Every structure is written in structure tokens, then in C-alpha cells.
């Protein structure tokens, strides 16, 4: 029996997320190597961007719809998706490591009584078997693992794989109305952090540390972040000091991020901070201590006082944006 892959797509406000398209693209690539079929599933009320699916190489999508599925409900999503997997004999399940994917993947593994790898950053095929690599200790070490159960769940880190665009093909969308939604756990409201990008999703992050001297000076970090359309991040020291909210904390007890560009300002580079951002594609360090460990992992560094260089950097960025 050939393997059947299922990729679980996530919509927020009716739009399938980029990280889900990435997961779809990865699952198609692996499926081609293993001669497996791939289908996708999405739950929601409506989906506005089905037109992006063909680029991933996916040609069959099941859309379970009901008003009550527009927001995430662990009870509803777990029961519907578990049933869909067992009814259709899917063997490999792929889902992105977003807030939703992190919540859902372990539930599926427990319900299906099967193996799971969380937060994979690479998947390779050796002897027709998927070998997954995932960071542990917030990236200080990588762990290689293979799953031995009949059904296998792979949870994939966003931005670690990229999207391989395919020649658009026809996509068949099977719309299934859900009559009863199990809402023993229900999202009654979504509170947005107004106007703020989240470090977990941003392409660029500007982070500040103790070198910023006080919460009042973070306007410099915020201004640069605004110019670059970036998220504001923070070190543990400044979060513990109450200068910044914990949602911005990057590091081993905060968020692990891998943006295209990470600008660390006044951050010395403690091991627990570096663990959370070392996989960023480009790292810029600005610190007046030339011996700060952050320079050892930076692609570009400026040894200077943040208060002196940040205003000029903001001006230079403004210039090139004109």
C-alpha cells in the first residue's frame, strides 16, 4: 500500500497562512521522493486565498466549513481532523509549528496513538525513511530522529524550508459542511496586539537589550523597527526588568525565531539569547563592547554606542526607502 500524506493547512481570518503553504510545499517534495500521494485539509468558515494552493503542487483539498470553525478550537479541530485521518487512512501528517500547529499536533499523536516530531528544521530521506532533524535546548544542539509507528506526525518550523513553486495545476476543493462542531473548548474572542508584528512571524526583528539603559529608550528600537517593517524583540534581562512585555522575549525561555534579518542592539549575546536567534539568516550586532559574544555570530557588527548609531541607521534606512 502506498503512503498517503496529509498536510493540515491553517487559516486565520479566512486566509491560509504562508507557513501552511510552506508545509504543503515540503510535503509535496517528500511525497514525490517516496511515491506517495498528498492531500490537504483546512478548517474554517471561509477561505479567500485558495488560488495560492496550486503553487504548492497540492491538487486535492478538503475544506471543512462551519461558522464555528473560523477560530481555533482544540476540541473541534482535534476531533474532525482525527476522524478525517482514520477514515482516509493517511499515514504521514504534516503541520506547521505555529501556535495552532503546536497545540494541535500533539493532540493528534495522542489520539492516533502514533509518533510525532515537533519543530522539524530538516527532513531527509534515507532508505525510503524520513529522518527528521529538530533543534533541542533552543538550538544549542540538533537531534535526529525517525518515527517507527504506522502513522507519523511531522510538525515543521516555519521559514526553515521555503516554498518551492510548482507549475500551477488544477486543484479540486472538496467542500464539506460540518453539522455539529464540538466546542467543549471554544475561542470566544481574539485580542490582537494592536499594530504590532509578532517576533515569531516577522521577516525582520530589531531587538534591544540592557544596553538600551531603560524602557524610555526603546523608542529608538521601535522607530528602526517601523522603518524596516520589523517586529520588536527583547532580551530576557529587559523583560525580567519589566521594560518590555514577555511576548517580545527572544531566547531559551522566550521565543525561538529565524527571521531573514535579526538586529541585536545592546545585547551581549548570553547563551540563552543566542540559542533563540542563531538560526536567523543574517545577524547584525550593535554593541559598544567589542568583546561581546554576540559579535561571534553576527554577519555584520558595529562597535558603537547604540544611542549614537541608531538615529543614523534610521536616517540611512529612510534614504534608501525613498
Amino acid at each position, binding site marked *: 500500500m502506498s503512503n498517503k500524506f496529509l498536510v493540515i493547512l491553517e487559516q486565520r481570518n479566512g486566509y491560509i497562512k504562508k507557513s501552511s503553504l510552506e508545509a504543503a510545499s515540503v510535503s509535496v517534495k517528500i511525497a514525490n521522493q517516496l511515491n506517495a500521494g498528498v492531500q490537504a485539509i483546512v478548517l474554517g468558515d471561509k477561505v479567500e486565498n485558495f488560488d495560492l494552493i496550486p503553487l504548492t503542487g497540492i491538487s486535492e483539498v478538503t475544506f471543512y466549513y462551519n461558522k464555528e470553525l473560523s477560530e481555533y478550537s482544540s476540541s473541534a479541530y482535534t476531533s474532525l481532523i482525527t476522524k478525517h485521518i482514520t477514515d482516509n487512512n493517511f499515514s504521514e501528517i504534516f503541520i506547521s509549528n505555529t501556535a495552532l500547529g503546536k497545540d494541535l499536533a500533539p493532540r493528534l499523536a495522542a489520539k492516533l496513538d502514533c509518533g510525532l516530531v515537533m519543530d522539524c528544521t530538516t527532513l531527509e530521506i534515507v532508505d525510503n525513511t524520513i529522518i527528521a532533524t529538530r533543534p533541542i535546548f533552543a538550538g544549542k*544542539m540538533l537531534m535526529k530522529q525517525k518515527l517507527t509507528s504506522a502513522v507519523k506526525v511531522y510538525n515543521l518550523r516555519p521559514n526553515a524550508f521555503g516554498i518551492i513553486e510548482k507549475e500551477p495545476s488544477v486543484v479540486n476543493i472538496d467542500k464539506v459542511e460540518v453539522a455539529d462542531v464540538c466546542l467543549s473548548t471554544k475561542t470566544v474572542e481574539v485580542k490582537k496586539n494592536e499594530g504590532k508584528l509578532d517576533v515569531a512571524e516577522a521577516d525582520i526583528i530589531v531587538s534591544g537589550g540592557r544596553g538600551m539603559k531603560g524602557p524610555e529608550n526603546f523608542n529608538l528600537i521601535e522607530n528602526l523597527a517601523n522603518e524596516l517593517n520589523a517586529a520588536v524583540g527583547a532580551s530576557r534581562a529587559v523583560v525580567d526588568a519589566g521594560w518590555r512585555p514577555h511576548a517580545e522575549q527572544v531566547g531559551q525561555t522566550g521565543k525561538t525565531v529565524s527571521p531573514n534579518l535579526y538586529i541585536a542592539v545592546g545585547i551581549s549575546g548570553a547563551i540563552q539569547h543566542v540559542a533563540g536567534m542563531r538560526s536567523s539568516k543574517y545577524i547584525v550586532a550593535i554593541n559598544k563592547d567589542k568583546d561581546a559574544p554576540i559579535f561571534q555570530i553576527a554577519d555584520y557588527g558595529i562597535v558603537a554606542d547604540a544611542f549614537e548609531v541608531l538615529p543614523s541607521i534610521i536616517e540611512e534606512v529612510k534614504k534608501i526607502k525613498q
Partner: protein
Amino acid sequence: MKIVVCVSHVPDTASKINIAGDGKSYDKNGLTFVLNPYDEFAIEEALKTKEKFGGEVILLSLGDSLFTESLRKGLAMGADSAILLKSNIYQDSLSVAKALANEIKNIGAEIVFVGKQSVDFDNQVMGQMLAELLSYNSVTVAVSLTIEGNKIISEREIEGGKEVVETSLPVVISAQKGLNEPRYPNLKGIMAAKKKTIEEKDAVVFDNYSEFLGLVRPTSKSAGKLVDSPAELVRLLREEAKVI
């Protein structure tokens, strides 16, 4: 009301991690182990819940005898008793979750608290797995919790905001930083903890569904170039790195 808190004993976040001689596990020699940071929020919330509604806070761990150190800390914070399911072998998350769930069933807990993840293997799965195995409701990555009778209202952190989740007892809550300010054990608590019992028994071992192939050190980034001026930095980011 019986409240269970699952706790883990992990290397301090300042630790440098090295690969052990077998090439598979990490070298525990010379590392300082601590109560998993997120579990402190879980214990604090359990204690606050007990203070409000009465009941009993029971700590539960699966691991080797060194785990008693973290259990003792939790007892010093104010938990009533602790159970250590002893295991010295590699068990994957679901296998651990099944052993813990079995014990939680025996205890008959109405609320289970866990830290949102342990900072060693970073799986962030235990709360969800326990909830499904026990058929309890659950909220993960919780930053607030209100209990009104049978009803639970909890905010969980998501990208760029929070979901406000409504559910009911019995429930598993996985604690995120921000849920509360964990108390420090005071002298009285530390003295009292010495008299509290840590019950030790062998863990029931369930099958692993994964094979651990080994550890690899991430490729280290070599230090890049120092740049003299802001203008040069911005030019490099634009023209060389092409990231802005």
C-alpha cells in the same frame, strides 16, 4: 479539589550542552539541573488555585532520582506532596505522557498544570497529550486563568495576540511566562518541605514510537565583518545580504 502539577528537572538555561560519548545523548556531567522554568509558573498557579478554592497540590514527575531536587523545591514553594515515577531509560513524549496520565487517573485530579514546555527537549507537547489521554479539556500557553465554579476562562498566547478560551473542568492548563509571578521558597517553606513525602515508584513503561538516532552540533556561524558606519551597514544589508 485535587490539583496535579507535572514538573521536570532540566539543565539550567545558561548551560553549554555537549554530546556524550555514545553520540546520542547529551553529557550531563558538570551541568547544573534546575526545576524547569515554565514549571514554576505551573506550580505558582496551582498554589493560587488551592488558596482560593482549597484542596491539595500534588507534584508529579517521571525521571531519575535526581528529579527529587526539583520536587523538593516545589514542595518548599508550598505543594503538599510529590510522586516520582522512576525511569532511567529514554522514553519519548507520548510514552511519558501515558505513564503520567495513568497516575493522574489514580489520583483523580480535577486540574492539571504543566509548564508549556521543558527547556531541554523543547517539545511543547505534554499538556496537549495529557488532555487527550485523560479526555480533559485544556488550554495551552496560558497567560491568564479564571475559574468560576465549573467554568474556565483562560487567555492563550498566539502570534500577535491572545485567544480567550472558554472551557470547563476537568482541565489541563499549560503555563506560559506571564501567567503569574512565581513565589520564592522561604525558610519556613524549605523546612516544611523536608517533612513532606516524595513517593517513589517505578514508572509504567509504554512503547516508544520514535528512534533517537543521535545528536549533531549546529554548524557554528563564523564571525562576520565589523562595519564602520551606519551608511555602510545599510548598504551591505541592501546590496550584499539583500534583506532590506
